[in-house]
């Protein structure tokens, strides 16, 4: 039976080339944009190298300290290294990574000693727990330790491509480089990561204690500073407990320092939600509704388009439907046939759409990741984000593409077909176009 449907679908394709072309292009367009939406969000939120612990991560991006007695307030985009240490003591977080954010950062000169500006890249100040939170693969050497950070060792971990560009090899542990004015010894080389994972990305990572202002944060607001704090829970289900522990830690701190109160504004939040949390608190509902609205537009508008065409074609096929019903075909079998025919076309369009989506993402990586954002998180490094096969060919993405095809097919073909089937056999046989 399925073979007959396919043969009939193929005959219809040959008879109505323009209809088929419009159908496949319309479907391909819808699937392409839907898949771009999926892939972009997959890269941002799914566990991809080296941010494979996103599911267990909680984030504090900004803090406000409001002083009592109308003495004003301090608002800071980030937190102090002290906050990292404090939260490590007060909570059961597996790791509390403290690192400089990339927002507003520009690439700086990196090079061998005496040749400081050989390359340009992002230099990130990180603590030792950074290497526990982000799952970098070391191809040479190892990460620097808490002892290295506390004793202000002039050490660095670098990306594989930086090692290759500077030394022509990757076994460069023990070599020295200059990065952001610091003369540092390489202790580790990691497999390349991409700007597409902006939280962890850098060309060179050095200990946070090498920052000149490391120990001179504001005295009145010692939890505020210039760093981001990411906490790793032992498992995804432990996140809520960890969140409560963080809130309790701040409450305790404020109780011990009664001159002001820290405003967390819903933080710490899940890693994915922190993308949307700029100046104000954002709820999960708000974000999901916005994405659903977009998804609806991407699938619903083409579905209406296709429905209109299918409806007109069903009018043309009324006689055929009448004949089939007269020979005993049930409404269900005719519905199945029409849905099957359209699914064949939709899947063809879906494959075209998926290929278009891959092509667009590969060629427009400079801006595509920030397409659905209200800010650009990826331009800081002044290089295009590298999109890896891991990010593109996940089973999730292929599954979503097929799901979108199925949904589009059902939305577009179901109502016109059901309407066409409501006619009696006599009415159908009498209809003439």
């Amino acid at each position: 039976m399925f073979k007959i449907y396919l043969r009939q679908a193929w005959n219809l394709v040959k008879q109505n080339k323009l209809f088929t072309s419009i159908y496949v292009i319309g479907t391909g367009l819808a699937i392409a944009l839907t898949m771009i939406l999926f892939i972009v969000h997959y890269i941002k939120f799914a566990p991809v190298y080296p941010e494979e612990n996103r599911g267990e991560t909680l984030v504090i991006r900004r803090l406000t300290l409001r002083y009592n007695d109308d003495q004003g307030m301090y608002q800071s985009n980030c937190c102090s290294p002290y906050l990292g240490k404090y939260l490590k003591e007060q909570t059961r977080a597996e790791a509390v990574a403290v690192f400089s954010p990339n927002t507003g950062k520009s690439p700086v000169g990196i090079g061998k000693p005496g040749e400081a500006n050989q390359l340009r890249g992002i230099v990130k100040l990180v603590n030792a727990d950074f290497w526990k939170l982000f799952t970098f693969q070391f191809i040479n050497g190892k990460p620097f330790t808490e002892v290295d950070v506390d004793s202000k060792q002039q050490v660095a971990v670098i990306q594989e491509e930086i090692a290759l560009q500077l030394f022509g090899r990757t076994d460069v542990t023990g070599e020295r480089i200059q990065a952001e004015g610091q003369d540092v010894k390489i202790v580790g080389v990691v497999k390349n990561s991409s700007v597409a994972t902006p939280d962890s990305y850098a060309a060179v990572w050095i200990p946070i204690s090498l920052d000149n202002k490391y120990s001179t944060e504001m005295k009145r607001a010692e939890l505020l500073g210039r760093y981001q704090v990411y906490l790793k829970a032992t498992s995804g289900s432990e996140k809520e407990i960890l969140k409560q522990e963080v809130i309790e830690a701040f409450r305790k701190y404020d109780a011990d320092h009664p001159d002001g109160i820290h405003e967390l504004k819903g933080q710490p939040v899940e890693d994915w939600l922190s993308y949307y949390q700029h100046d104000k608190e954002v709820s999960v509902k708000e974000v999901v509704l916005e994405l659903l609205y977009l998804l609806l537009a991407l699938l619903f508008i083409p579905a209406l388009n296709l429905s209109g065409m299918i409806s007109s074609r069903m009018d043309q096929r009324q006689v055929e439907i009448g004949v089939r019903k007269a020979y005993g075909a049930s409404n269900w079998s005719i519905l199945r046939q029409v849905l099957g025919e359209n699914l064949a076309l939709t899947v063809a369009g879906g494959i075209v759409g998926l290929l278009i989506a891959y092509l667009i993402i590969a060629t427009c990586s400079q801006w595509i990741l920030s397409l659905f954002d209200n800010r650009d998180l990826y331009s800081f490094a002044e290089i295009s984000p590298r999109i890896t096969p891991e990010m593109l060919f996940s089973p999730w993405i292929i599954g979503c593409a097929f799901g979108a095809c199925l949904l589009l097919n059902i939305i577009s073909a179901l109502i016109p077909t059901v309407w066409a089937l409501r006619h009696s056999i006599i009415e159908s046989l009498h209809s003439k176009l």
Partner: protein
Amino acid sequence: MIKMIFKQLWNQRRQNGWILLELIVIAFFLFTTSAEVVRATANYVLPDGYEKEKSYFIELKEGSKFRYARREREIRDSIFQSHFRQLLLTIKQSPEVEAVAIVRGDSYPGALSSNGNGFVSDDTACVRIKCPWYQTFVIDGTTDFLKVYGLKDARTGEPLQLAKAKLACPQGIVSVAFARQLFGRTDVTGEKVHFGKKLPEGSDANNYFEIVGVYEGYKRSNFHVPGNNLFVLTSTIRGRNEFNHVIAYRLKEGVDGNAFRERIMSEIAPHYETTPTAIKDIKSFGESLKRFNDLAGAYSRYRYTAVMAFFVLLCVFLGMTGTFWVRCRARRQEIGLMRSIGASQATITRQFMTEAWMLVTIGVLIAQPLIIHYIHELEWDITDPTAHYWQDSKTWITLATDGLIYILMVLIALLGTWLPVKQAAKDLPAEALRDE
């Protein structure tokens, strides 16, 4: 003819219903993605209020091998300031440079910092206003920040001149928006402005400043209207902080900015590598604005709107082409009859295109209640409520965006209709009537 076309549309209401529904959804969706961009574009074309061509700033950092060691704070300040002055003079004395300015680290276009505190006037009955961006310039005999920035006098439109040359008390200049919001007028030279709240006389000399000039609107970013901002003028560089001060300069006419930047980096920068004022980077005001716009997502929004508009308009095109292609086939007899009684190809094409135009018009009109509801519920930040820019009015933005999407949709729908109708109208009457 219009009446006849209405009847045609009504008779084929089921087939037209799909395309009409699609047009309604697309009109609404296009509006939601375009309204913000229409407003941002209207802001973009407003004058910047300062000269961004030829103006640059130098970001500083602490030199790699420089260490203050255990020196006292006053000594550290003095070391920093002497190197800073030396670098400033070097830049100023370059033959390419017209003027230099000492600017606090957040006082150039595109600076990321913002200020959440309020300001009040001497008259306590006045409202307390917020000024999201206040900037500081150091003025002395060496610098000329007015020339570097090219601010214009709010009254005359000419380059701004300060009312007083000496700095007997803290002074500042304010934007026309700031003056209007705090005082309700623009002739405010000589008035006092207090930070946060008015303190008793003599309690804190730095808690207020006297206005010595009012300048025309100054846009913080390309995509906002000139808002309420102000410049506080000071005669001293406070403390040792390479992050807190930058050197801004303006080049003379005809000087290549990039060539001069490279000259600074290759000839001047190496001399300061081991000082507390090593040169970190040099950016033009334009580059700084671009970075600000990138971070604020302004260009992302344009891209998003362009991509979505392209997507939905292509949907309209495909929908119109597909629907009218099917309909033309179904109406071949009608077309044949019309041709046989003397209708020209142009008449038939015009009739079908009028149908398409009416469908789009009806679709956009039906979408209006949804659009009005959307714009009514939209949070609308108004940077300067006293300026009455047309783009701050929801009504005008609705009309402008509606007009834009209507024109786009009509054009695309007509193109999508013209292709199949032109093909169908070419058939000979005998061929078309053979089906009858």
